[in-house]
């Protein structure tokens, strides 16, 4: 049986009459790279802040490593390393001093050897004595990850870790996260508003929208089991509908375009039926229903 590290049930957070989070349920197991996906303003950051006791939940329960975050905050946080929103440091201090400050109160080994080892792991070797004020966003993000690792936590929480990074920075951070899982065997929770981002890194995920966790599960299962929405450019849309009468959910988009929700394996049969009926198929494109669903959410 999988060991649950984070268990959030019916989490809600209100600011006056505004409900930032309405009903979020999350289960993260040991060894997961868990993605929290949702459009901007969905409640991802609020959920993470509640998880880390930065803000007090209005209702619901949050258990980290079996500890209630309200009553056993210290025990729970001792096993967590995190970056919330963006990595902010004391700009007037060096990278090394910043790490020492955060490491000291996390109970970490703050010897120069260990600090340099961590900075080296995130690719900041040679910049130990440099003041953070001169660091780019990507360098701060790396320093943030070094900071999360200092006390050797079991769980790493990263809130939108690739936001504001250039393409190379995104790849670097993605690789760092994968190293955390594969080399250090850490459980990682990360939030993002980009589905492809989560798809590339996470093995499990939740989609949050308007403060509600809409769907949760294994990424590959959620993506593979979902039916595809197939768009076809055909010579006659009206006649195509008649030929595909046995397929449910066939829709005419315009005179030459139809859409159909079907399993991937059914696509060749569908095209075959149209060809036999004298319909020419010029173009076939598909997208997953989950992606479409998420895009609808984000567009909303």
């Amino acid at each position, binding site marked *: 049986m999988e060991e649950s590290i984070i268990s959030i049930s019916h989490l809600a957070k209100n600011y006056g009459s505004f409900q930032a989070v309405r009903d979020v349920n999350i289960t993260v197991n040991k060894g997961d790279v868990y993605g929290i996906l949702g459009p901007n303003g969905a409640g991802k950051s609020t959920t993470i*802040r509640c998880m*880390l*006791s*930065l*803000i*007090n939940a209005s209702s619901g329960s949050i258990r980290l490593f079996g500890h209630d975050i309200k009553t056993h*905050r*210290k*025990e729970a*946080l*001792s096993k*967590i390393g*995190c*970056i*919330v*929103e*963006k*990595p*902010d*440091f*004391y*700009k*007037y*201090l060096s990278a090394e*001093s910043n790490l020492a*400050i*955060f490491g*000291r*109160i*996390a*109970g970490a080994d703050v010897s120069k050897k260990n600090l340099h080892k961590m900075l080296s792991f995130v690719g900041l070797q040679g910049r130990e004595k440099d003041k953070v004020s001169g660091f780019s966003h990507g360098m701060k993000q790396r320093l943030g990850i070094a*900071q999360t690792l200092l006390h050797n936590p079991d769980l790493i929480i990263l809130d939108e870790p690739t936001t504001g990074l250039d393409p190379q920075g995104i790849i670097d951070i993605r690789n760092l996260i994968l190293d955390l899982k594969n080399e250090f065997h850490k459980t990682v929770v990360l939030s993002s508003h980009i589905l492809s981002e989560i798809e590339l890194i996470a093995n499990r995920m939740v989609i949050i929208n308007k403060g509600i966790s809409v769907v949760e599960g294994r990424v590959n299962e959620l993506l593979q089991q979902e039916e595809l929405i197939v768009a076809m450019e055909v010579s006659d849309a009206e006649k195509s509908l008649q030929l595909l009468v046995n397929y449910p959910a066939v829709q005419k988009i315009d005179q030459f375009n139809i859409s159909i929700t079907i399993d991937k394996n059914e696509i060749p049969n569908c095209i075959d039926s149209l060809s036999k009926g004298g319909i020419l198929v010029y173009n076939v494109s598909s997208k997953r229903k989950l992606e479409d669903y998420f895009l609808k959410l984000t567009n909303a």
Partner: protein
Amino acid sequence: MFLKNTYNEFIKIAAKPRSYISIAAITVLVGIILFAMKIDGPAYISFITASFEQTLNFEGNIMNGNLMAFIILQMLIVQIPLLVALVTGDLISGEAAMGTIRMLLTKPISRTKILLSKYAAGLIYTFFILLWMGFLAVIVGRWLFGDGDLMVLNSDGLVIIQANDIAWRFLGGFMTAFLALATVATLSIMLSCFSDNSIGPIVSTMSVIILFTIIGTLDVPVFDNIRPYLFTTHMAAWRSFFDNPLPIQAIKESVVILFAHIGIFLSISIYHFNKKDILS
């Protein structure tokens, strides 16, 4: 963990350029006062003693280091709260403004300990500021102007304190002044808990001090009942150590009132900081 974090906080204070503004300002101000006294001191003293010269004959070195130290304390003790608030008002709100408060509060240390370690570091800084001012006023003052009896003019008249009776009075005076400044530091830290920017708590602290001082000096009966309980009324309690006889009861009252304010301000800070949602 508390000591480790207090050490952290002191590193942060020591690394901030604004922390040295106070030291520089005090050094310059004391330097100016000592320089002015060295040049025009006798004229200044004769202006003060003019009304007594008909009845009293002054002998010896009146314009000595002890008098310089007293004058400096009297002049600067009004400005020091601003210099203290400049640093202590930034201790919590500065972290919120920088965003580092998120990093800090997700570490396995209680919010109360974080606040108290910031408070302790703030008090150490306040003590150091006062110590520096004391060093410049008393030690440098004596070095430049020599030792001698201290002549103090207060509301009851002229008090002469013998040179060998002064050291403990300065010590008591500095300790009481520290308590007054610690009250200001606690007030600014409390206001800092309610703010997410650095300037607000500093300005608010000075506004409270100015408001309370005005209420304290307005000779209006409606304020008679609250005046004794305002901390600003007791900020000059250090001066009582230079009265003869020593007003022990008044000093005790001042100490109790200042401690009560520290207790109240600190309790509010701890309560609010523990309940606060970190949204910055």
